[in-house]
């Protein structure tokens, strides 16, 4: 097992200097996700304006893979349409479950293509998806909340 394939420089850079870390106001939904096998926990907030993702903020402690993935995810989804963010999530998930056989489009996924190597380590797939699934969950709750407001 080649750990260099797993720990791409981009991943370690994001791990050392996480983007958008720290909880911020305002937000419509906050979720708490857990990876019980390693104990990683993540609190994540989403602030939507209609179908635009205005902000995603989070507080988490976890391994380099989960932290870097969450950091990169926020860069990819903030300031874009929610539908776009959820689409990225689906594609990212598919790639992560593809055991290295599925490729991501660098133009759309930017730093996240570094996770291609992680897909070959089944035990780490959950780590890489923790932030993404928390985002999808929070966004879902936020839209339900908006629906109720109308």
């Amino acid at each position, binding site marked *: 097992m080649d*750990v260099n394939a*797993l*720990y791409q420089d981009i991943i*370690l850079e994001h791990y050392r200097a996480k983007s958008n870390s720290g909880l911020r106001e305002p937000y419509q939904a906050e979720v708490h996700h857990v990876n019980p096998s*390693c104990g*990683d926990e993540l609190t994540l907030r989403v602030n939507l304006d209609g179908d635009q993702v205005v902000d995603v903020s989070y507080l988490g*402690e976890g391994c*380099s893979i989960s*932290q870097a993935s969450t950091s990169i995810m926020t860069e990819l989804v903030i300031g874009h349409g929610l539908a776009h963010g959820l689409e990225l999530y689906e594609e990212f998930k598919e790639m992560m479950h593809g055991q290295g056989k599925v490729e991501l489009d660098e133009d759309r996924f930017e730093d996240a293509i570094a996770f291609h190597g992680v897909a070959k380590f089944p035990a780490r797939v959950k780590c890489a998806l923790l932030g993404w699934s928390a985002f999808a969950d929070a966004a879902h709750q936020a839209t339900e909340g908006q629906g109720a407001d109308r």
Partner: protein
Amino acid sequence: MTPVAAPFDVARVREDFPILAREYAPGKPITYLDSGNTSQKPRQVVDAIADHYLQHNANVARAMHLLGAEATEAYENARAKVAGFIGANRPEEVVFVGNASAGLNLAAHTLGAGLGPGDEIVISVMEHHSNIVPWQMLAERTGATLRWFDITDEGRLDLSDESLINERTKIVSVTWVSNVLGTVNPIAGIAERAHAFGATVVVDASQGVPHLPTDVSALGVDLFVFTSHKMLGPTGLGVVWGRYDLLAELPPFLGGGEMIEVVRMTGSTYAAPPARFEAGTPPIVQAVGLGAAVDYLSAIGMPAIAEREHQLVEYALAGLATVPGLRLLGPTTSHNRGGALAFRIDDIHPHDVSQLLDSRGIAIRGGHHCARPLHERLGVQSSSRASVYLYNTEAEIDTLVDALNWTTDFFKGR
């Protein structure tokens, strides 16, 4: 194939564990330092299991034929062996269940049947989830209050709060040996204090029985729970030892075949211990396997095993102290200390440590090791844990220490 006798010959011991020769890369054997999670099994145990299935398999107790008699004898012999191994007064004090967690739930349900608001249950902050959640659920069901022993800065049980155990205390349940800190707790003293107030004492001995000579009578406790898979035995088997007088008083927990005396449509009466607590077909062949494990451990001798592990822990403590940025959780000396060696390395998450070690074939555990409240108390979210058993060597500790140094470099250098 009798196992080795003292003086302790670890090379000879390792021959009985074929899995230790497994390679993670051509010519490179694995380094298994995760026995606190589950132990490996000697050939003798696996052979006993296979032989039972292929030559003596039948249901127990209720079968009136050749194989039934052989299976029953094998199962009850296993009970007697386990009873002897832990110093029980009689085999009927040994109840076989699914694992240690099932045993602790049995304790909580049977001891807790009569609890109510105002009653107190005392556990400790260093407990494994399996000795926390059953008591939390019991407190919720009954309205009783759950109270906690804290730990000292050194990672020992903090016994300074004299009022923690008092006249409201009905149950005290603590671990003998911590699965994270390695701390060996002064069970006999705690039991004495609890008994002075009429409380019942439960011990989670999951990390004790595999490693230390055990004498339940000397410990002076009431219920005592451990698990087969951590002591060279099969998965799917836990043990509850109880004072016979207490077991005879306790209500049943699970209902079903074999735990009954008479079943009528209008109600049922229950069998005497241990049958009362063994509903349905018991883990027959798992018990036979544990019997073989107990034979194996006894042939070497638990004092010799404890002494050997003590040496290894001393060696490992010295080695780990040389790794830059490594902070041990729990006592830093080998005094009253088991083989769990949990640690943090600055700025490297335990999951990443495990990954790097695994790339060199080294198996340790990362996470909260089913002890989240303890980690919260220590102010860390998770940790790495190496743990040793009778088949580990000083060379394996060296391999670990080397790999930890390499891990630090790997993350620092990037």
